[in-house]
């Protein structure tokens, strides 16, 4: 999609310090912090802020992953179900239950199994999209169904408990008193931003997302790049599944429910263009935090569900407005 004549800055560049400073959504996030700090004295405590970070980590990891296809003008609708099936697979493999009754694997192998499964799903949708030009919307929708069904089969529709501590430890332990899940999130965030900023692959993602035909003509292997972004987002979803095992202490067949829209919303809220070619991981982080802080703050204030929904709607609207108006 060509950008409108008005918002030229849609074609925002990749992260530089200068650009960070004129980064729009940050204003919205700061606004939320100020408001909640004034309204509730437990909001700005270390404990609660660590909570917020923990609360956003799963969505955050998925959001980082799905940033790659979005930058590349693709979309991945399968992340929630891939997250689910990967987590369930790791858990059943590690305990040797259900589909894998009696054939328990060591934890690293179980984790590898889940990651490989996710990679296979990403490869499937990525290959069909890149090779045959089928919109990723459709291929990942198909994978959504496949992964959902496979998750039911793997888990026998029932939660898996009694997970080994080394499996739940990835997302559920503390490192120097700090939740490991947050560390996983942070490390992945930094690595992903480095990948985007400093590698050829990162540059190609922007090129393909900005103008696929031009990128192809300039000699970029567009197929590999498109496919690569979908494999990456599947892998990140699998990691999200892994840390979820630690966070909730078990594997639940419905643990992906409701996890499609928030990660994608976070990416867009962070200023990425849904049509590809612009955005970055810092934006995604800000988007994730806006969603997380909003929910946490409203919970602390004891706003009732109807009020929360209305408040979320209003704040989202204001946050994106601030973002867009701040661009000029």
């Amino acid at each position, binding site marked *: 999609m060509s*950008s409108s004549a008005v918002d*030229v800055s849609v*074609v925002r*560049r990749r992260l530089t310090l200068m650009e960070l400073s004129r980064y729009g959504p940050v204003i919205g996030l700061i606004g939320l912090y100020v408001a909640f700090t004034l309204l509730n004295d437990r909001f700005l405590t270390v404990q609660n802020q660590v909570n917020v970070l923990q609360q956003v980590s799963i969505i955050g990891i998925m959001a980082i992953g799905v940033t790659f296809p979005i930058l590349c003008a693709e979309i991945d609708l399968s992340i929630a179900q891939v997250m689910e099936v990967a987590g369930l697979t790791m858990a059943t493999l590690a305990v040797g239950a259900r589909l894998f009754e009696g054939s328990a694997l060591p934890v690293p192998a179980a984790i590898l199994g889940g990651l490989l499964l996710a990679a296979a799903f990403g490869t499937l949708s990525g290959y069909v999209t890149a090779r045959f030009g089928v919109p990723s919307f459709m291929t990942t929708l198909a994978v959504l169904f496949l992964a959902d069904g496979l998750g039911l089969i793997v888990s026998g529709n029932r939660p898996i408990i009694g997970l080994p501590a080394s499996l739940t430890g990835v997302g559920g332990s503390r490192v120097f008193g700090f939740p490991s899940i947050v560390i996983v999130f942070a490390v992945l965030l930094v690595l992903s931003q480095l*990948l985007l900023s*400093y*590698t*050829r*692959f990162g*540059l*190609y993602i*922007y*090129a393909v*997302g*900005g*103008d696929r*035909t*031009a*990128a*192809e*003509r*300039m*000699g*970029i*292997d567009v197929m*590999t790049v498109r496919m*690569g972004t979908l494999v990456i987002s599947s892998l990140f979803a699998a990691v999200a599944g892994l840390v979820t095992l630690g966070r909730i202490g078990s594997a639940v067949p419905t643990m992906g429910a409701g996890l499609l829209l928030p990660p994608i919303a976070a990416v867009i809220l962070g200023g990425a263009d849904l049509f590809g*070619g*612009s955005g970055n991981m810092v934006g995604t982080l800000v988007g994730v935090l806006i969603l997380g802080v909003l929910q946490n703050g409203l919970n602390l204030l004891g706003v009732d569900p109807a009020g929360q929904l209305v408040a979320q709607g209003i704040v989202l609207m204001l946050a994106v407005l601030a973002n867009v108006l701040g661009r000029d």
Partner: protein
Amino acid sequence: MDEGTQGHDPIVVMEDITKRYGEVVALEDVTLELRRNEVLALAGDNGAGKSTLIKCLAGAVRPDDGTIRVDGEVVEMDSPRTAKRLGIETTFQDLAVAGNLTVTQNVFLGRERASGPGGLFGILDKSSMRRRARELLEELEIGVDVEEKVSNLSGGERQLVSISRTLLSDPKIVIMDEPTSALSVEGAERVLDLIDRMQAQGISIILISHNLDHIRRAADRVQILHQGTDAGVLDGATVTQDEIVKRMVAGKPSSEDERHAAVD
């Protein structure tokens, strides 16, 4: 140009190329021969099939029929990357630049300088690329900031950026599809000089242009297309404007021999 110095050694031969877009026949049994180290101009009315023909050679379009030979070998030109591997660089009419990237990034895209693991995960050497891009633009007297987004450039600046890409690699064959269409007189002059310099370096060039003065100045031979068909080849040094226009409008004259007479 003196005919004799180049000989008739073809570097590219496109034979019986046919390309249809649904009902539209863009090319029908067109044959094109590019000789080593010559400048071949491609002329024809709007929609004659010039761009389609060179896109086939650049790997951007796959012909329905016909063969392409480069250096005597039949090649399947299945992607722009294949063309690049064979030393073919192209400036497309619709430019093919990524507007959301900077000038430097566009200039280097597809052949970045990188260190580390190499391949897709090589670490980009940004400052060296920036430096080289700056030099390159100075050389071509293009006054734009190398860190500017290409979508923010004027039409002419964009065209110059696109042209400057061809200089970076070490091409054997350069295709330029209307490289001067958006340029000022002075800018076009620089591009024509550039073409001369490339030829001096031994590069073979295909130039598409609607400017007959430019054609006559730069081209050794002129291949003309008429509604997707071959309308003959004329000698660049001797051809008159009238002759070109006549063929562009009416196609190849019935006398087949005239073509050969004109060239050999």
